């Protein structure tokens, strides 16, 4: 008996490690299935939706490759699987939250925030987390498990032995090829398998899983080319005829130009029930009714400010670059053709003002390549003693800084101000606000408690933003210098509950609504474009700003001619032709070759 027992122990000892390795290998396979289920859950889909061997394996493959790298580095099997699993769960949770709030899944560009993590980004994302204490405790628990797994799992291979070296080389090569965006990844994750959609990232996630769609997007960005369809551009240029003539002014006459991107600024009366409540944007409405603006279509909803900002600063539609979801992150240009760069060449001082971290959305690098001389961020707001109203730096503080910058400048100045005060989340109890004014904000009937809180928070700050428009306008008039003032909303706020409960006046969806834009050509300037309420695209606004200012170039004159034609075109053929020419023109602009095409006719 004792002999058999000893023999059994011997056999067990001999096969213990292989058995353990087999179990861990099975765990790796199970992890792929679990990841798929988590992915489906995070995006509100049935567990079996698009489930198949390829989709499940392809969705797990990036994680497996990362885990193999860790295996090669640590010589452990379980620890890498756990670590990669934790990251995957974190990404799925982030996607779930983003999907709930914005209706859009986690995107490759969101990873960018991890590379620029700082207090501001922690503050912004932390504000969307319920019960942060629980999350911190959970994170500490996960960390403890990871440390324990690392300590208790013995290495499976000899240090720098054949197995480790082979794994290092193999996994390193796979990661290198993925980063470079080459084969075999481009074949494994091609459009036929991932099935992306031109309408946004959601369908690729639905059809192939979040991680497959992220790999696909990465490959697209790595292989991005600015392709100029010269024939389409030529056809459109011929169709448009001669562009409006430029009208340079003497340096002494150049007006100051102030462009305010007001976070989530909308006309609240697009919401059913709001027309019966007191007007919360009287300053904007008065200017609009006096013919100084209209509505515009923007390429963002609920977030993605930089997409609208990109269009306003460059005159290029974001959709002309489908591989670049967030152009400041996806498009690398040492010299970005833009309004500030053009004005800088004409002798302007160029300043950007934004009460948040400059690293956000890669603004520091992008603004530098766009020709901004200076970029004043949350640090400058703090240094100048700007107070917060609600969660973010106040619009009144931002207006103070804009006016101080103009006063301090010796010559014509271009100021871009990107506001923060009305940034979400809107679900928190009011803090650092004028409580009497907050409570006095009238809401339409028919909202439940949560939706009412969200809408009241939003409307309170919206009214404050409008008051700053009035103040800035008055201050510019009082300065006695020529000026051009542009003010607009970047997108609709993410308020899914109020939208669902009230609906929109036009019966449309949140994504189909427009935002207001205001353009005042002040003393000493003129606007040649037709006055009166005018509907347009965000990428048309810079051409109008420059038309009022004076300096322009062939691209902005092209936009000035094309924009109204595209808005007014009733025939689909003409719309397609104009859009094709616009896309070709924007790509030529990005390649610094637009003038070549326009002048070479």
């Amino acid at each position, binding site marked *: 008996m004792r002999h058999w027992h000893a023999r059994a122990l011997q056999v067990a000892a001999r096969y213990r490690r292989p*058995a353990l390795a087999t*179990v861990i290998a099975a765990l790796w396979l199970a992890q792929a*299935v679990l990841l798929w289920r988590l992915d489906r859950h995070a995006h509100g889909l049935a567990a079996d*939706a698009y489930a198949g061997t390829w989709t499940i394996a392809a969705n797990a493959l990036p994680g497996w490759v990362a885990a193999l790298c860790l295996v090669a580095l640590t010589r452990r099997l379980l620890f890498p699987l756990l670590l990669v699993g934790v990251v995957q769960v974190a990404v799925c949770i982030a996607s779930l939250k983003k999907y709930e709030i914005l209706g859009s899944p986690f995107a490759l560009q969101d990873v960018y925030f991890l590379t620029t993590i700082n207090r501001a980004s922690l503050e912004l994302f932390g504000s969307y987390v319920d019960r942060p204490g629980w999350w911190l405790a959970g994170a500490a628990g996960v960390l403890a498990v990871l440390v324990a797994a690392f300590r208790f799992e013995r290495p499976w291979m000899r240090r720098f032995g054949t197995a480790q070296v082979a794994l290092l080389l193999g996994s390193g090569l796979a990661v290198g090829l993925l980063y470079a965006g080459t084969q075999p990844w481009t074949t494994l994750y091609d459009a036929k398998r991932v*099935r992306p959609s031109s309408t946004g990232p959601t*369908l690729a996630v639905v059809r192939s899983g979040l991680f497959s769609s992220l790999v696909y997007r990465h490959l697209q960005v790595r292989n991005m080319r600015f392709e100029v369809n010269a024939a389409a551009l030529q056809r459109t240029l011929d169709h448009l005829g001669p562009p409006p003539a430029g009208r340079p002014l003497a340096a002494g006459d150049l007006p100051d130009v102030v462009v305010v991107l007001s976070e989530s600024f909308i006309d609240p009366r697009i919401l059913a029930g709001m027309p019966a409540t007191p007007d919360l944007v009287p300053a904007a409405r008065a200017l609009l009714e006096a013919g100084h603006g209209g509505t515009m279509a923007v390429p963002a909803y609920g977030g993605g400010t930089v997409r609208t900002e990109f269009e306003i600063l460059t005159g290029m539609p974001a959709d002309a670059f489908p591989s670049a979801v967030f152009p400041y992150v996806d498009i690398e240009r040492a010299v970005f053709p833009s309004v500030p760069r053009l004005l800088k060449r004409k002798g302007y001082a160029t300043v950007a003002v934004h009460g948040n971290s400059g690293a956000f959305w890669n603004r520091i690098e992008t603004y530098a390549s766009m020709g901004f001389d200076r970029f004043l961020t949350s640090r400058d707001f703090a240094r100048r003693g700007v107070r917060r109203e609600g969660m973010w730096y106040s619009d009144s503080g931002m207006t103070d800084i804009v006016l101080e910058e103009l006063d301090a400048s010796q010559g014509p100045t271009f100021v871009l101000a990107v506001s923060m005060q009305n940034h979400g989340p809107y679900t928190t109890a009011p803090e650092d606000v004028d409580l009497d004014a907050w409570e006095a904000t009238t809401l339409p009937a028919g909202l439940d408690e949560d939706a009412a809180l969200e809408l009241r928070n939003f409307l309170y700050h919206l009214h404050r933003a409008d008051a700053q428009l009035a103040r800035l306008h008055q201050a510019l008039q009082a300065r006695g210098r020529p000026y051009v003032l542009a003010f607009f909303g970047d997108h609709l706020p993410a308020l899914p509950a109020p939208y669902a409960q009230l609906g929109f006046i036009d019966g449309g969806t949140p994504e189909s609504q427009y935002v207001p834009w205001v353009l005042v050509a002040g003393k000493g300037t003129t606007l040649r474009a037709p006055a009166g309420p005018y509907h347009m695209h965000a990428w048309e606004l810079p051409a109008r700003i420059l038309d009022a200012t004076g300096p322009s170039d062939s691209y902005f004159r092209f936009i000035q001619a094309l924009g109204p034609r595209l808005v007014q075109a009733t025939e689909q053929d003409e719309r397609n032709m104009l859009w094709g020419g616009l896309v070709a023109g924007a790509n030529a602009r990005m390649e610094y070759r637009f003038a070549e095409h326009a002048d070479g006719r």
Partner: protein
Amino acid sequence: MAARWMGVAALVLLAAGCSQQEQVALDLQPAQVSECDLPVSVQVTWNVLLPGVEAVELHVNNPGRRPMLWTQTAAFGSQHTDAWAADGFTVTLRTLEGRELARRTLTTTACADAAL
């Protein structure tokens, strides 16, 4: 000992991936369409044979949209949607207390000549 625990864990994880609720049926007809035919009308059929569940709620949503209550009805039945179901259209069957019983998603096959 470690191998045994890992084995148990693997079985639990795999079982979680294979669990089925045989007393709850939820079907979409069609369950899959060509991308070219979207949006489509879908027939939703459900049958819940769980003790104490006399009535159920069906919530529907297209991708990126919040699920909204479509109908509150008996524990079995069948109903047509209008032609607004898109790729990823999802129906969730819940008890009146909000417990999820089943979920089905409409999928598509690629449209041969559709531009991506």
